[in-house]
Each structure stands twice: as C-alpha cells, then as structure tokens.
C-alpha cells in the first residue's frame, strides 16, 4: 500500500522533460558565450578590418587633395605651352611670308628677263622679215624690169 504512493513519483522521475519552454542553465551560459564572442570578434575582426578600411579612406582622401593641387600646376604648364606654341607659329608664318615674297620677286625678275629676250628676238625676226621682204621686192622689181624689157624687145623687134 505504501509503495503504491511511490509509483507516480517514480513514473515522474523516469519521464523525460519534453517541455517546449524549458528554461534552465543554458540561458546564462549562452549570455556568457555571446559576450565572450563579442569581445573576441571585436578584437579579431572589427578592430583590425576597421583600421585597414579607415586607413584606406584616409589615403584616398589625401591622394584626392594632392590631385586637386596638381591640376593648378598643370593649368599653368598648359598656358606656358600654348604661349610657346603661339610664338613659334607667329615666327613660322612671318618666315613663310618673307620666303613667299622673295620667291615672288625672283620669279618676277626672271619673267621680265625672258619677256625682254622674247621681245628682242621677235623684233630681230621682224627686222629680218622686213629686210627679206625688201630684198624680195627689189629682186622682184629687177625681174619685173627684165621681163618688161624682154616683152618690149619681143614686141618691138622691128
């Protein structure tokens, strides 16, 4: 009879806890694990990687500032280069014009010379032709005279 009272108690001891809301020592252990993990991750991951990333950002910012200064220098150099180019261009055009004028002058001179030569030759040829014409005219005159003498002699033989 007394052992009958014990049976449900023994049964309770033998059953396994199947509760879904079973809070026990696991909870504070997980809390402790989380805090230790937080410390570990902070020192192993977040701090070193944050350092590298921030250093990289700083370096990039420095380089950007440097590049901005360089662009002023570059503008000055560009202006200088353009000035030099302009001067060189002016010089070359001046020289070119001079050359052009000189060649034009010499060409003109040559042209004149050859024109004169041609004119002279032309005049000579004309004079030649004139003298030849007079000569032929004279010879013609002579021949005409001879012919007319012959005709007269033939017509008036008696």
């Amino acid at each position, binding site marked *: 009879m007394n052992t009958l009272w014990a049976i449900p108690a023994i049964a309770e001891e033998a059953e396994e806890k199947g509760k879904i809301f079973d*809070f*026990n020592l696991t909870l504070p252990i997980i809390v402790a694990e989380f805090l230790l993990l937080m410390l570990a991750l902070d020192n192993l991951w977040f701090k070193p*990687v944050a350092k590298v990333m921030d250093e990289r950002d700083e370096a990039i910012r420095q380089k950007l500032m440097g590049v901005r200064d360089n662009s002023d220098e570059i503008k000055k150099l560009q202006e200088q280069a353009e000035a030099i180019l302009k001067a060189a261009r002016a010089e070359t055009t001046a020289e070119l014009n001079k050359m052009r004028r000189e060649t034009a002058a010499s060409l003109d001179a040559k042209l004149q010379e050859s024109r004169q030569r041609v004119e002279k030759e032309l005049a000579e040829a004309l004079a030649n032709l004139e003298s030849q014409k007079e000569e032929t005219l004279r010879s013609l005159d002579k021949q005409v005279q001879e012919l007319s003498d012959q005709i007269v002699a033939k017509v008036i033989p008696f």
Partner: protein
Amino acid sequence: MQIEQLQIFEIDNPHQVSSVEVHAQVLITSWVVIALLIALPVVATRNLQTIPTGLQNFIEYVLEFIRDLTRTQMGEEEYRPWVPFIGTMFLSIFVSNWSGALLPWRVIQLPHGELAAPTNDINTTVALALLTSIAYFYAGLHKRGFSYFGKYIHPTPVLLPINILEDFTKPLSLSFRLFGNILADELVVAVFVSLVPLIVPVPMMLLGLFTSAIQALISATLAAAYIGESMEGHH
C-alpha cells in the same frame, strides 16, 4: 513509514539535479558556431593589404554591411561603439541559423535529443532578447541618466502603462519571432523529409535559408533600432 521516507528522499534528489540542467545539444552547436565565427577573421586577417582580395574583401564587405545597418538605425554620431554588439548579434544568429540548415548534424547521433541550430531553443533566443533589452536600457541610462525614465510619459502620461508594457513585449517579441521561425522551419523540413525524402523538401529548405537570413537581419536591425530609440533625446 520508513520505506516511504526513503523513497521521498530518493525522489527529491533528481529535482535537485535537474535544477542545474543544461541543454547540451545547444551548447555543442553554439560552440561550433563560435568556432566558425572566430576561425573566419583569424584566417582572413592574416595578410591585410590596402587593396583587398578574396577573403579580405568578403570580411570588409560584412563589416561595411554591419556598420551601415548600425549607422542607419542609430545615427552618425553614436553608432561606433555599438557596432561590435550589433555585429555579433547579426553574425551569431545568421551563422547559427544557416549552420542548422546546411551542416549535416544528423550524422552525429546523440543519446537524448539531436543536434540542430542553437537558435531553435528558447534559451538561446530569450538570452539574445534579454541582452538586447539590457543593451538598450544601458544605452538610455548611460546617455541620458535618470531622465531616461522620462520617456515613459513622453507623448502623454496616458500612455504610461503601454510604455511600461513595451519593455516587456520587446524582448518577448524578439525572442519568439526568432524561436518560432527557426523551430518551425526545422520541424516542417523534418516532416517533409520523413514523408518524401527526395526532392520535395528542397524548396522548403531553400525558403528556410532565406527566412533565417532575414530573421538574423531583423533581429539585428530591431536591436539597433531599440538602442537608437532609447538614446535619442527629446526633440
């Protein structure tokens, strides 16, 4: 009489033992998660270079993501000290959930219970939720001193009971949201696998990966939001 007393004495002992009970399967899987989370940065920060490649790129991306998350919720000035807390919250929940879904825990047979995600146990999720509660209380008190308690009557004193209730519902909802999602997903996948072990469980498993990742993000975002909310002053 004597026999009864003996038996009562013997029955008392298991109750004393069970008051220091522990869910060993949760501890084992949580140690695996911690090992993974510590191995990753140790390997990846071996040779940190200015121009990152491979693994360093990945861990920088994760840190950037966590920083952005924290900064969005807490504002530019105050977010820096809280990045480790929110980061650990996000990463531990994320890796716990995905380890439960991806690692082949069933290969290891335990005498009682089985290995699964550590977040499928109410102890884990309530632990994380309580940590969040303590964190936002600490943030508020640290920043504003005892005027922090003025926030309970902030819009109107009529809302005082609701504001007090909020301090209880916040950790409750945080813990139950995570616990319910993970445990339910595991149970559904287990049922599917026991019915049709071949192709049918796979979409459910993929959905489980997606939702568990979202749950990690939500837990971290809400933690950051509560902390940010308790740090902001009266406008």
